[in-house]
């Protein structure tokens, strides 16, 4: 990994070992909670007229894509504030997937999240600038920009990463570890944290979620707001039960231009009420999960993966 050219014939990305969902090292979350729940609000900025990336179009229509752009702009004018208030009411601190240029465009939003005690990680500079095609220096540059920009705006040293618009290179994971990131939200192979193979240091794969992401709920699975709320509760109930054996992680990734719409926020609030009242959840932030896992579980899990490979 790490030095492979952009488009070699690679079939196994070599990101992690196969680790069956059987007889795993027992993860114990603080307070002996079976499930860690974290919410990831994506606080994003989409450019109205971004330059073209050779591998992916930003907008499906000629610029300005009025509905595409203004729908997402809704987040920063309306949706964020509504979503943040509901989260605060039920004791959920966000772990922000941040388009770091939001620190320049709308510092009010970033300051609000920071004042609420939310953690930040980088989701790239803009969600309209993709990593595809970048060389190593360029990818390193957007990571350095992210670290610097968030530190200047919030005082926080970011430790996590979710590639902008989920665009990766085969170098991404190595670079993250090298630059002092401790977790990535880019890999969807498990409901528990686990080690990622990197050339140096340690990097944790943090369970994020595509499947219960509000974007999937509303734009891929075409759910009604109440169906989405029911989906989240089912996800929670199952993972909480399974976590009795070894702690699980449930992430609720949100985009306030979706969940902050007036027909969706009410049913969503019922989900937070349910989880907060249930008592089994460690309601926390991704950095805290990563830190706990690194301190208590990483070595045991890494040793487990050193078992003779059965596959």
């Amino acid at each position, binding site marked *: 990994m790490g030095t492979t050219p952009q488009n070699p014939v690679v079939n196994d990305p070599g990101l992690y070992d196969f680790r069956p969902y059987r007889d795993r090292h027992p993860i114990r979350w603080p307070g002996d909670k079976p499930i860690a729940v974290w919410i990831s609000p994506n606080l994003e900025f989409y450019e109205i007229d971004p330059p073209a990336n050779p591998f992916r179009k930003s907008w499906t229509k000629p610029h300005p894509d009025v509905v595409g752009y203004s729908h997402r*702009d809704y987040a920063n004018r309306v949706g964020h504030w509504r979503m943040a208030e509901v989260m605060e009411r039920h004791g959920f601190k966000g772990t922000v997937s941040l388009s770091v240029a939001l620190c320049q465009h709308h510092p009010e939003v970033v300051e609000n999240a920071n004042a609420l005690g939310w953690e930040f990680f980088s989701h790239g500079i803009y969600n309209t600038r993709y990593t595809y095609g970048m060389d190593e220096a360029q990818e390193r540059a957007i990571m350095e920009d992210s670290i610097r920009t968030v530190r200047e705006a919030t005082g926080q040293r970011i430790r996590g990463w979710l590639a902008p618009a989920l665009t990766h290179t085969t170098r991404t994971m190595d670079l993250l570890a090298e630059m002092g990131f401790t977790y990535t939200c880019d890999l969807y192979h498990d409901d528990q944290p686990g080690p990622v193979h990197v050339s140096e240091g340690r990097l944790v794969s943090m369970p994020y979620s595509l499947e219960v992401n509000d974007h999937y709920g509303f734009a891929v699975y075409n759910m009604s707001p109440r169906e989405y709320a029911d989906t989240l509760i089912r996800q929670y109930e199952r993972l909480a039960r399974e976590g009795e054996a070894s702690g699980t992680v449930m992430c609720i990734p949100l985009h306030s231009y979706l969940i902050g719409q007036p027909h969706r926020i009410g049913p969503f609030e019922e989900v937070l009420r349910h989880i907060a009242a249930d008592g089994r959840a460690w309601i926390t932030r991704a950095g805290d999960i990563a830190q706990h896992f690194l301190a208590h579980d990483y070595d045991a899990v890494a040793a487990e993966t050193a078992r003779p490979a059965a596959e």
Partner: protein
Amino acid sequence: MSLDPSYLEYPRRRRGMDHDLYPWSNLFDRPAVRWPGGKGVAVSIVVSLEWFPLTPADKPFRAPGHMQTPFPDYRHYTSRDYGTRVGFYRLLDSFAAVGAKVSVAVNAAIAQRYPAVISEIIAAGHEIIAHSTDMNGTIATGLDEEAERALIGTSLDVLEQATGTRPAGWLSIARSQSWNTPRLLAEAGVRYMCDWVNDDLPYAMQTPAGDIMNLPLSHELSDRQIVNVLQQSADSYVRQIQDAYTWLDQESRTHGGRLLPLQVTPYILGLPYRIDAFDGLLRWLKDQDNSWFATGSEVVGAVPR
């Protein structure tokens, strides 16, 4: 390989928006809006009344709802016409039953082809706003500026001749605009447009030809999005609009007036198996003590610039 170095340059990475059309604004920090009668939630219905030519022009793009089969697509031509001949009259009855005044976004071709429907809209006291010439009259960057100016001018002129009133409002097909559209609409004297869906209240945009208001006609709450795109039932649509109303009602008690914009399509909600659910929704909305049915012009007129 690597990307052109300019891909990592961000000339518009600055405070505020990355364009000059409107400044950023937090809905919850604005002075509270007061609707007439002290009501909390303005329910503003916009009906799209559209004529689809049998031959799509596809310049610059094909409108949603347009022809789909090889020529001649009688299937979709007649299904859309059903909305204008039958579904729309059901909707008119629905609005009359609860005393709601709405805005009807009309293709100019409707006024030329079916003057009877225009008379009935006017007689019922609804507002007519412009919605391009016909469903081949789409707008996007790439459309020549003079052609766009003519399209906007013709749409307004035809409706003014048919109704005696120059439309104050504008809805683009698929809410699609070019870089020039807000300026050309302001230049043509349009007071408000309904294309940008970035807010829950109307706000002003600035163009070199003067200001124009934007009434954010939520595509998320439209019957097209919920029923056609997301494939949900009329009952689910009703529940979602009720949930939206309930939330906005609650917010209005602490933050001032809120807007529930409902875009309605005659060939979608005007069908026999859906219209009763919509009628029930309208009765429910009317029964809420904090609701105010209002046209687009009434809503825009009640929001301070």
